């Protein structure tokens, strides 16, 4: 409806008749005196505090122990079938007992039949406990971390930034992004928070130091 396009734009321009013609968007000053970080404590400590507040499970692990820790986490949840993106580092699943389903275009039913998913991430904001996936290395497409009921996510210390501003500047908006802050939740019934509605009901984070 190109007629509507012209009509809406004409209405917008008419509505803005009071804005001086010479004014450029940048002439409207945006004061950016806000902080880039808030809580001055060690980032991993802050992140753990925030994640636990959201009822996510967290463990701080060493690089060497990672494969063992991954296997143990999956075993604790009795995960029989775990979905992984195609480019997940091979050693991550080297100790795993569960059947590993690599995402060679798995259909939705296959994802639905899996017990969990294992991924890395792109960026993490400590202050808000937010893990961002950008479909980059070790993450796969968005559906992988959505359909299975358990998400085990590996975070490396160099992926952690203090707060939202640094996370935003590290991210590439042309990629599809999913920001995750704890397991899915609802407060729609009398404002009582219930963890776990449609997304994974359990989020577990392994922080590799």
């Amino acid at each position, binding site marked *: 409806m190109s007629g509507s396009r012209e009509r*809406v734009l004409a209405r917008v321009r008419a509505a803005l008749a009071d804005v001086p013609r010479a*004014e450029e968007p940048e002439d409207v000053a945006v004061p950016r005196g806000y*902080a880039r970080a808030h809580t001055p404590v060690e980032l991993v400590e802050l992140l753990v505090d925030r994640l636990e507040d959201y009822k996510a499970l967290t463990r701080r692990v060493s690089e060497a122990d990672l494969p063992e820790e991954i296997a143990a986490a999956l075993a604790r949840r009795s995960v029989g079938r775990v979905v992984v993106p195609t480019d997940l580092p091979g050693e991550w699943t080297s100790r795993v007992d569960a059947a590993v389903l690599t995402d060679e275009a798995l259909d*939705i039913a296959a994802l639905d039949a899996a017990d969990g998913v294992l991924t890395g991430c792109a960026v993490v904001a400590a202050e808000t406990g937010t893990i961002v996936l950008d479909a980059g290395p070790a993450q796969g*497409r968005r559906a992988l971390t959505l359909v299975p009921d358990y998400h085990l996510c590996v975070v490396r210390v160099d992926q952690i930034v203090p707060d939202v501003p640094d996370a935003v500047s590290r991210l590439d908006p042309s990629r599809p992004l999913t920001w995750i802050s704890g397991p*899915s939740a609802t407060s*729609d019934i*009398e404002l009582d928070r219930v963890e776990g509605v449609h997304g994974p009901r359990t989020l577990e984070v392994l922080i590799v130091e």
Partner: protein
Amino acid sequence: MSGTFLGMPPFPQAAGIATGDAQLRHNLRKATHTIRGRRASVVGELDDWAELRAAGKAIKDRTLRHLDVYLERLEETVTAAGGHVHWAADAAEANAIVTRLVKATGETEVVKVKSMATQEIELNEALAEAGITAYETDLAELIVQLGEDRPSHILVPAIHRNRAEIREIFDRTMSDWGVPAPEDLSDDPRALAEAARVHLREKFLTTRVAVSGANFAVADTGTLVVLESEGNGRMCLTLPETLISVVGIEKLVPTWQDLEVFMQLLPRSSTGERMNPYTSTWTGVTPGDGPREFHLVLLDNGRTDVLADEVGRQSLRCIRCSACLNICPVYERAGGHAYGSVYPGPIGAILTPQLRGTSSELDASLPYASSLCGACYEVCPVAIDIPEVLVHLRGKVTQGKGHAAERAAMGAAGWVLGDEKRLGLAQRAAGRARNLVPRRLPGPGAAWTDTRDIPDIPAESFRDWWAGHEKEKKKGGGR
């Protein structure tokens, strides 16, 4: 199908019905006070809240004052990323576009993410007429849809329902729509959420078309942003083959960086969380990941009328956080339905009459649905001076001479009403000190206060009390 707001009685009568409903008042009070407390706690954590708020306001002002530039830029960037952009001057056009797009897919069912814009244009009803069933997937929206009800809150549309009522609705209606509720469904929120999960899962995994709104649209990059909690948004935005997003033209922000401000302001003001559980952003289409087709419908539907009003324009800064509802003594007593639109509370009182005009009794009465205490302005993350707009709109209603209550009031209160500015000063002053608060609101507001007590005003002026309250919260630290 959920009911519509057409033919609603004007605010005073509707509010009268609601204030007489003890259950409703109890539900509302409990809910609004709970969210209010959460908000105060997480806002108090940030010592730069004032700076974030100033930045949020300025970014939106920049966008609105140059909206034509940003709209054209967004069209360009979305198109370059593989999306299709459509323009809708009004609700009928938007509904026709969405209907046509759904029909082109050959599907007769769509899943929906909670969206104020699609409620505003009554898209579900339009789709139903075309033989297309829209499934609301947000838990609260599902409760509203199954209960053939209307939303009463921006963030928690079923805030007026308690757990027993929700259990009854699920038990009675889920089987008509798909997977039935379990036989032994209890009213434990966990059990109710689980019933919704099972009921909707089938829809998510099989439906091929989704309809959403968006919280933000980034002009520079063509990126759309949806904040949510449950994961129903991710389901709708990721699994279907076709995604149609209906977005008001005021939802734009200029740059990706601007999100660093709004992603702090919105979750803390809205659900009172440091961050909402899930935020999805997407730019056009990504091969092999998510929908193969993406349509963006840019909606005017009265927004350019709001834009044209130099005082009212600030209403378009609204990011729909609902903080103003939760703090409002009038909303708490009247309930969301009394406002007769999808936009209840203080923001509804200024937005609805501007979007729809004031030719109906209801819409003309909305600018009076306030005691002008100013609490809404204090909590607004983009600093919309709601009292200023209310007073401005009262002036317009008076000039329009279209409002019967207004005409009647002219005789008695003509000297005040004759001068818009004087009216504003008088009413603002009334909110500042208890001994000056009349038991009747001045002017046509009296029609409203006549039917009930006006909200209690604390001994301190509300602003002073609020300022102290926020400080206290801050001192008290986190939650």
